[in-house]
């Protein structure tokens, strides 16, 4: 490890303005070789902008301040320049080409070649396998397309890609947002290994337990300003949160008592076939019931079939599926999301960008998309009445937007999610399915979404909550279903339930509760 005070990388007084508005206002950030610095801040605090400055997306000269690399000024004009220096960023959204092979992705842009520009596949396969071995992935065929592997594997491929570029400074932006607990564990282990090998890391995450575990130092930014940099040893999760929000958060889970009524919804024998490989069942004969005002958590590892299960119930599963549904004692046939919504069964999908929002449409148009008929007579929209509803929803759900006509893509993730929730709430759901409702959402918006979930339950709405964050499931749900490999592996009342119990059921190692 480098000597004290000997920084590999230093940012001094970075200021970046967009049309006169300062997104970054004097940020300092320092990293030593072999050190992991946690960068924390709410969504919109300026983390992404800062990362774009330091990785060369915003070229030298388009911002003020200076960047030192091994004590020398670094003037990166493009991502390629900064990568050549040894700075590699792994983005929150995976940047892999699905149809290219694992090895081709790992070496994309830096292909190993033979004379004449021919691809040296043998060398790439060998080196890719070696890299993946280091990451403890030994079940991967590097010649197969990336799309054959799940999100967890793909995240690790991204890291292999960074290692192939011989990264000295690795920036990880929310690397675990699509990983399961076990995959997260592997990733954190890898970050620790990298530190021992002298690689410096900047770790950006909302998941403070991860920051606490791998980071040596934590820098907090808020509203584009540098708030504090302290050794992790002097901090804990509550202290970091306090710095991030500038005030102490009492608790993210103000658990609200609510009455649970009679069985309102039943799903029986739900099965989904893999759309590509119909021999394989993604969901295999899952049955459950749901009571009025109940919050039902569905936990499981990525690939356990949770999203497929709820999509099939909502009529949105892409492949073939079968299910018997009963809503309020009457059998329900759902062939499309439209039918589901009209019956009172609504869903907020997992992938907000692809399935939740229409990016170019205004915030208001997105909010009323599912219920446009309510404001229309003979196909004519009463726009003023629509706008009245929209403004009421924006107020109630605390969607921060300059105007209801602003394209929704310009909003932060948390505000987009609140708008998507508003869209479905306008349809007056009896059963509301929330698939990863707080993914990529800042802490403030998270707390508001939790409050809303309890509020709805108290009003008698039944909620199905799919989440990969166990504390979220345990903090919100009245009952927890655990899925694994397409099957139901546990059905626990949430009384004294621990993360360990849920995880054990998900990986099929623990005792099964009676379904």
């Amino acid at each position: 490890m480098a000597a004290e005070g000997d920084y590999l990388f230093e940012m001094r007084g970075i200021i970046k303005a967009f049309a006169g508005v300062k997104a970054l206002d004097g940020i300092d950030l320092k990293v030593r070789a072999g050190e992991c610095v946690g960068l924390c801040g709410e969504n919109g605090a300026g983390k992404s902008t800062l990362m774009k400055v330091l990785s060369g997306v915003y070229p030298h000269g388009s911002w003020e301040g200076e960047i030192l690399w091994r004590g020398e000024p670094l003037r990166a004009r493009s991502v390629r320049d900064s990568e050549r220096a040894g700075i590699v960023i792994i983005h929150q959204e995976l940047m892999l080409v699905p149809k290219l092979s694992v090895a081709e992705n790992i070496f994309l842009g830096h292909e190993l070649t033979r004379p004449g520009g021919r691809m040296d596949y043998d060398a790439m396969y060998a080196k890719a396998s070696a890299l993946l071995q280091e990451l403890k992935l030994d079940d991967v065929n590097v010649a197969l397309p990336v799309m054959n592997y799940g999100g967890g594997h793909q995240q690790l491929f991204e890291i292999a890609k960074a290692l192939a570029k011989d990264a000295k400074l690795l920036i990880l932006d929310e690397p675990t947002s699509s990983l399961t607990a076990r995959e997260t564990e592997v990733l954190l282990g890898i970050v620790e290994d990298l530190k021992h090998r002298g690689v410096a890391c900047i770790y950006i995450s909302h998941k403070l337990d991860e920051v606490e575990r791998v980071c040596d130092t934590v820098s907090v930014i808020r509203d584009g300003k540098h708030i504090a940099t302290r050794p992790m040893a002097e901090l804990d999760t509550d202290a970091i949160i306090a710095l991030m929000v500038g005030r102490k958060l009492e608790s993210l889970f103000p658990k609200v008592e609510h009455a649970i009524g009679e069985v309102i919804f039943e799903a029986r024998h739900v099965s989904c076939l893999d759309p590509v490989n119909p021999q394989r069942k993604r969901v295999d004969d899952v049955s459950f019931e749901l009571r009025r005002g109940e919050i039902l958590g569905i936990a499981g590892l990525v690939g356990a079939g949770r999203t497929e299960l709820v999509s099939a119930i909502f009529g949105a599963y892409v492949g073939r599926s079968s299910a018997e549904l009963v809503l309020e004692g009457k059998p329900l046939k759902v062939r499309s999301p439209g039918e589901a919504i009209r019956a009172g069964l609504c869903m907020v999908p997992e992938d907000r960008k692809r399935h939740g929002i229409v990016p170019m449409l205004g915030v208001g148009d997105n909010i009323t998309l599912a219920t446009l008929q309510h404001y229309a007579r003979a196909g004519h929209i009463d726009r003023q009445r629509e706008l009245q509803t929209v403004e009421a929803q924006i107020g109630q759900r605390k969607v921060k937007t300059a105007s209801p006509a602003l394209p929704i893509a310009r909003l932060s993730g948390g505000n987009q999610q609140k708008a998507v929730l508003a869209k479905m709430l306008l349809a007056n759901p009896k059963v509301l399915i929330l698939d990863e409702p707080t993914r990529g959402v800042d802490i403030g918006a998270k707390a508001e979404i939790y409050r809303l979930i309890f509020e709805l339950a108290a009003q008698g709405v039944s909620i199905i909550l799919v989440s990969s964050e166990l504390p979220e499931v345990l903090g919100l749900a009245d009952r927890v279903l655990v899925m694994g490999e397409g099957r139901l592996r546990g059905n626990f009342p949430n009384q004294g339930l621990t993360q360990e119990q849920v995880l054990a059921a998900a990986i099929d190692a623990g005792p099964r509760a009676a379904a």
Partner: protein
Amino acid sequence: MQAQHIQQLFARYKILALLLAVAAIWIFFHIATEGAFVTPRNVSNLLRQMAITGMLACGMVFVIIAGEIDLSVGSLLGLLGGVVAVLTVNLQWSTPMAIAAVLALGVLIGLFNGVWVTRMRVPSFIVGLGGMLAFRGALLGVTHSSTISPVPDDLVYLGQGYVAPMLSSLLGMVIFAVLIALTVLRRRRRAALQLRQLPWWTDVLKLALIGAALAGFIVTLNRYGGVPLPVMILVALLAVFTYLGTQTVLGRHIYAVGGNLEATRLSGVNVARVKLVVFAIMGLMCAFAGIINTARLAAGSPSAGSNGELDAIAACFIGGASMRGGAGTVHGALIGALVMASLDNGMSMMDVDTYWQYIVKGTILVLAVWVDVLSGSQRD
């Protein structure tokens, strides 16, 4: 900073930029033709020429906003125009009967295309390419590859007639009165619902500008016999399509489907039906354009509508529609059609060789979209 400001201005007032481009083109041709371009007679001709591409562009812009494309419209225009000629000339149908039949046929063929795209899930590019060949073939079949004439006078009137100056002025005033009424009604409704109001002078300014443009348009055309009938039809279509696009559930769903198909489906919208309707409307517009085309030529021609799809598609993109779907406007597409028609008309007047005409039109299309990209509106 300076460049950014200009960029924002362009993005915000894209229509203004387009109108400036049209003005520049007109001034250029006016000088190049020594004052023969911007005359009542030529403007009247120009707008009449533009009407057919404009009708196609009205339908096409919805197809493009919905994230699809339809390459068959030129051939379909020809086929439907041929059918109206065959019905009136060979089969002696009355003109209203023949028009009604062709409009219905247009909708049916549009639906047929739509079914291929939505139910059979063949990409619309391919369906259009197939239709382009097949409809042209059908046209050659029904006309036996020869020109069919003379079509009845009442049909010819649709393409070559004028709305009398008095009536034109009256219609212009009615349109203006309706616009004022709509504005007042909207302000009242917003006040009743306690929504924020725009300052009153913006509405007045907007109405004044529209009024001035309308007056100039009608006064000019009245000096050459009145508003050409196809142009009047196009103005009516502009009103109907703008209404469809901005005030109806269907319109909102078209933008949503093109903007994000999956999110729209998961919001409970029947996306297949939206696309089907869009293709049906496109078929209907082909029928309109085909009938007017036959009426203008006073004959059904086996080559009618060749390359019509390209002009219509180019008009939409010049008018700011997004290649990815989800964005575009009807008035933008019509201004795009005006740009294309102005180039055709001006270059013909200057006796520019045909080969140059193609090169110039192609270049303008690419440049127009490039400017759009620079203004940032084609980015996601």
